[in-house]
């Protein structure tokens, strides 16, 4: 076919790819948020800033150490995870028995801190980061850049791996059980406080990974986190807070919806996610895959 709804197929495929790319990052980040919320019951407002941190560490590795993308892909998530564990151990743990609002406010403060510090050093503009993959696949009506395909494939792989880790491994069973009844899990001899630290680290590591993968596509800028985080929260709510499957499905799904909206009703693209969120809350308050109330 030549044109669909008056739109050239190249444009459709183009927006679909963009949608899947955005969706990849929505999924990766909401995955981290879902894991953190699922076990620690904290809304990690610093998630966007930690994603930004990941991107900057990747940039710094290239700029100062000459270590490229593939090194960053390996090292950055470990570094951000370590930073996350430090944050949990020194700060979040103190707020443990209190109303979750305090932890939320703490992470909010950390987000401001990180963004302020980076803006001070780098200004609001972005640093370029070279794409590690050049070339692509030429289809009859579209060109698919290789790096973008890599991002989509890698994100899906990470999402599936994380899902498998939580749903099918012993450690994941610890996480799921500790979510339900942390005190009882402790009586089995499982060090739940350590579990909490590791889980927060895992979530932050995922954010950092997202940052590395984002660096070649979006510029590495101090604002990249705050631009993204509000949309990611909406995605998490739509998917169901604390649900891994929900985060993945909602993430990719909303990326595609956003892309198609941009094609058909360009002005609405900025808010379609929030409209969907309000609809979801009205019709199915616990989210697509959420269980019970929060």
């Amino acid at each position, binding site marked *: 076919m030549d044109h669909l709804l008056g739109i050239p197929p190249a444009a459709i495929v183009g927006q679909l790819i963009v949608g899947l790319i955005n969706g990849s990052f929505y999924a990766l980040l909401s995955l981290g948020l879902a894991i953190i919320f699922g076990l620690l019951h904290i809304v990690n407002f610093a998630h966007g800033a930690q994603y930004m941190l990941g991107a900057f560490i990747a940039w710094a590795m290239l700029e100062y150490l000459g270590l490229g993308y593939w090194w960053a892909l390996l090292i950055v998530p470990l570094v951000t995870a370590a930073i996350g564990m430090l944050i949990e151990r020194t700060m979040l743990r103190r707020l443990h028995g209190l109303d979750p609002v305090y932890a939320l406010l703490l992470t909010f403060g950390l987000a401001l801190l990180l963004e302020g510090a980076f803006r001070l050093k780098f200004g609001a503009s972005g640093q370029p980061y070279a794409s590690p993959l050049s070339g692509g696949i030429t289809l009859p009506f579209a060109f698919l850049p290789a790096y973008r395909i890599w991002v989509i494939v890698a994100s899906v792989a990470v999402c599936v791996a994380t899902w498998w880790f939580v749903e099918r491994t*012993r450690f994941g*069973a*610890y996480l*799921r*059980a500790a*979510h*339900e*009844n942390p*005190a*009882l*899990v*402790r*009586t*089995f*001899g*499982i*060090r*739940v406080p350590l579990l909490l630290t590791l889980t927060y680290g895992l979530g932050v590591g995922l954010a950092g990974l997202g940052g590395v993968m984002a660096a070649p596509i979006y510029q590495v800028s101090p604002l990249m986190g705050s631009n993204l985080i509000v949309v990611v929260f909406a995605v998490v709510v739509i998917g169901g807070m604390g649900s891994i499957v929900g985060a993945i499905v909602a993430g990719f799904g909303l990326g595609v919806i956003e892309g198609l909206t941009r094609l058909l009703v360009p002005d609405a693209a900025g808010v379609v996610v929030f409209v969907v969120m309000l609809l979801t809350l009205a019709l199915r308050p616990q989210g697509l895959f959420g269980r019970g109330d929060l």
Partner: protein
Amino acid sequence: MSESPLLQVTGLAAWYGETQALSRIDLEVRRGEVVCLLGRNGAGKTTTLRAIMGLLQRCRGRIEIGGQPALGLPPEVVARLGVAYCPEERGIFASLTVEENLLLPPVLAAGGLSVAELYELFPNLEARRSSGGTKLSGGEQQMLAIARILRTGAKLLLLDEPTEGLAPVIVQAIGRTIVRLRERGFTILMVEQNFRFASRIADRFYIIEEGSVIEHLDRQALEHDHARVESVLGV
């Protein structure tokens, strides 16, 4: 000359926040015994078990497990002293299968039962191993709750109301299970409202009222004084 008790509690007092839940608990459990805590609702029986397990924030007194001081230790450390806890609400995890529930507690010491042995002891658990934990009947969930703590190698089992809400046939099965566990060398401290059940299984009894131990009897004394004890418990 008898060896030192596996569990010794002296002058235990405990609070939930500002409210005092235990005033003075003194009890001991020797190796291989089945000891039962009796008492009315709200007397402090469950609180006593929770305090031993390290689940209470505010405690005073002495708790010794195998001679080791244990007051104030966090639950995961108490578990490593060889104690396991089966709560009143059973605590079966809904988001885990039966088998995942069973395998969840890590093996902390030698002497626990293997999975094969557990399935032999509780055959209906094997049949339902892939079901969601909470899809089981009450009796099956109770079996699962007891079974899973037997893997860990814990020698002292704290069972909170193991027969609550269960049909008489299941109650008998649990009674037989506890007897077999005692034969295998486990030591059990349990809380029971079902007076008849307890009086046939346990070796010794402590009656708790308003946070303190008011009476201590062995099985013979209990049989002798059956009626009076029943009236004390309000049965």
